[in-house]
């Protein structure tokens, strides 16, 4: 399929309502091994992204994502807000100058996003972070698209992988951010950032 800026804008509009609906869920998770603000920052951050995209006269996907990234960071300069801003900036680089992208380019864009988070946060899979949802999800997405599945079906697979990844974080010890200070005590709690990763891929699935 052909993905335009409008497709992406609509996806973020949906993600924004997902974050809003899951505010308390994220607050609860982040209260256990963090500072409890994740629900607030994600609602505020995604709302700012949507506001920025709605204002954008741009149909250049790259430029619009660039502005959206700065908007996310200004509205939510928390760890997760900054990681997602970094992801948006890399998505912007990957789509610079393009008014429409293909399925394969969509996958590349998602991979760029995850690489942005990895480069910014310097975490590895297994460190109990958002990456434990995002990395398996993008891998599933890429494999499905490569095997010829539709983007819809591929996002379905990605969302399932993200959810499994999120669930698995309860077995992990946190190695980054505030969760890290809890050390072994972080085990048994699911990672709030990974929940965001899961919500993102479920949201992308539901909004294509």
């Amino acid at each position, binding site marked *: 399929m052909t993905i335009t800026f409008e497709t992406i804008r609509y996806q973020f509009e949906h993600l924004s309502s997902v974050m809003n609906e899951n505010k308390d869920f994220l607050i609860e998770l982040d209260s256990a091994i963090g*500072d*409890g*603000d994740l629900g607030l920052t994600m609602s505020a951050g995604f709302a700012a992204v949507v506001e920025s995209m709605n204002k954008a006269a741009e149909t250049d996907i790259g430029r619009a994502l660039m502005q959206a990234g*700065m908007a996310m*960071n*200004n509205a939510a*300069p*928390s*760890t997760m807000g*900054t*990681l997602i*801003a*970094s992801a948006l*900036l890399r998505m912007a680089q990957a789509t610079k100058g393009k008014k429409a992208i293909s399925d394969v380019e969509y996958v590349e864009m998602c991979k760029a996003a995850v690489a942005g988070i990895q480069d*910014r*946060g310097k975490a590895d899979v297994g460190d109990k972070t958002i990456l434990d949802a995002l990395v398996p999800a993008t891998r599933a997405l890429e494999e499905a698209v490569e095997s010829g599945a539709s983007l819809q079906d591929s996002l379905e697979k990605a969302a399932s992988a993200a959810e499994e990844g999120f669930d698995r974080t309860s077995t992990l010890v946190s190695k*980054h*951010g*505030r969760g*890290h*200070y*809890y050390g072994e*005590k972080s085990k048994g709690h699911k990672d709030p950032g990974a929940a965001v990763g899961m919500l993102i891929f479920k949201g992308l699935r539901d909004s294509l």
Partner: protein
Amino acid sequence: MKKIMNRPDRFANETLEGILRAHPRDLKAVGDDLREIVRANAPQQGKVAIATGGGSGHLPVFLGYVGEGLADGVAVGDVFNSPSAQQMYNVTRAIDGGKGVLYLYGNYGGDVMNFDMAAELASMDDIRVESIRVADDVASSPKGEEDKRRGVAGLFFAYKIAGAKAETGAELDEVVVVTNRALANLRSMGVALSPCIIPQVGKPGFTIGDDEMEIGMGIHGEPGIDRTKLQTADQIAETLTRTILEDGPYESGDEVAVLVNGLGATPQEELYIVYRKVDEILKEKGINVYHTYVGEFATSMEMAGMSLSILKLDDELKALLSAPAYSPFFSQPQL
């Protein structure tokens, strides 16, 4: 929640408004963002500039160390939250005097990521940026994982040393080298006796029993290493001093600077009672105290408790520590 404030969501901004109204000779905002504050005379041409930043709720950290012989600008976040990369970048541009900018701040995830992002933005403007993260809290990660440690009151020494070096007209690399040497010589550790309340949250994030204290708790209430019955000042001094001395490069014959820092609610009288014992232990060990700072240098709003920081000096560090400094929050003549 017994705070003197108006609306909790305006806590950080109204603090900044008050600061800008109180100190117009010394500080100014960049553009009209209260959260981006620089020395009134910024940028200073021909001087390495120092930018810092972090969450509100720790005065005089971070804003209080913007001044002569200290830092040049600060990006201020909400209570206990990082400012944005954009704000840091704006501050960077407002203070750059052509000799590059040092980012000097506490080692917290959100701050690290935002300062890194700001550095990338600045590099697109051909502003040279180096970053140093203060990670002095020995209680926050074991030896061998020093780079995971949090930055606490030792930030003061980092600003003092880097700021004095920059003021000499040194190059960015030289400022980096001496600041890193200071940080290698610096250790801190604290105890908390009571929690503090984030205004927008309205209740403490954790509790400490009426007869309890927590050793090694972070300045945002991060869990410490031991929850014990309230100890005497001498016992606390012993624990902190011995842990720091074991972790760091301190030896008999060394000369050090000492900082006994109050977290907010603890009276200065109590800090001096602790220092009394710290000084005794250092003397016993043959460690010579060159200069002692006692007071509130890095706080957690109304948290009760204190921290100890020890900086080992060499000739250059001693000269830089002794240099005059002035901000509305910290002032020192030539020692």
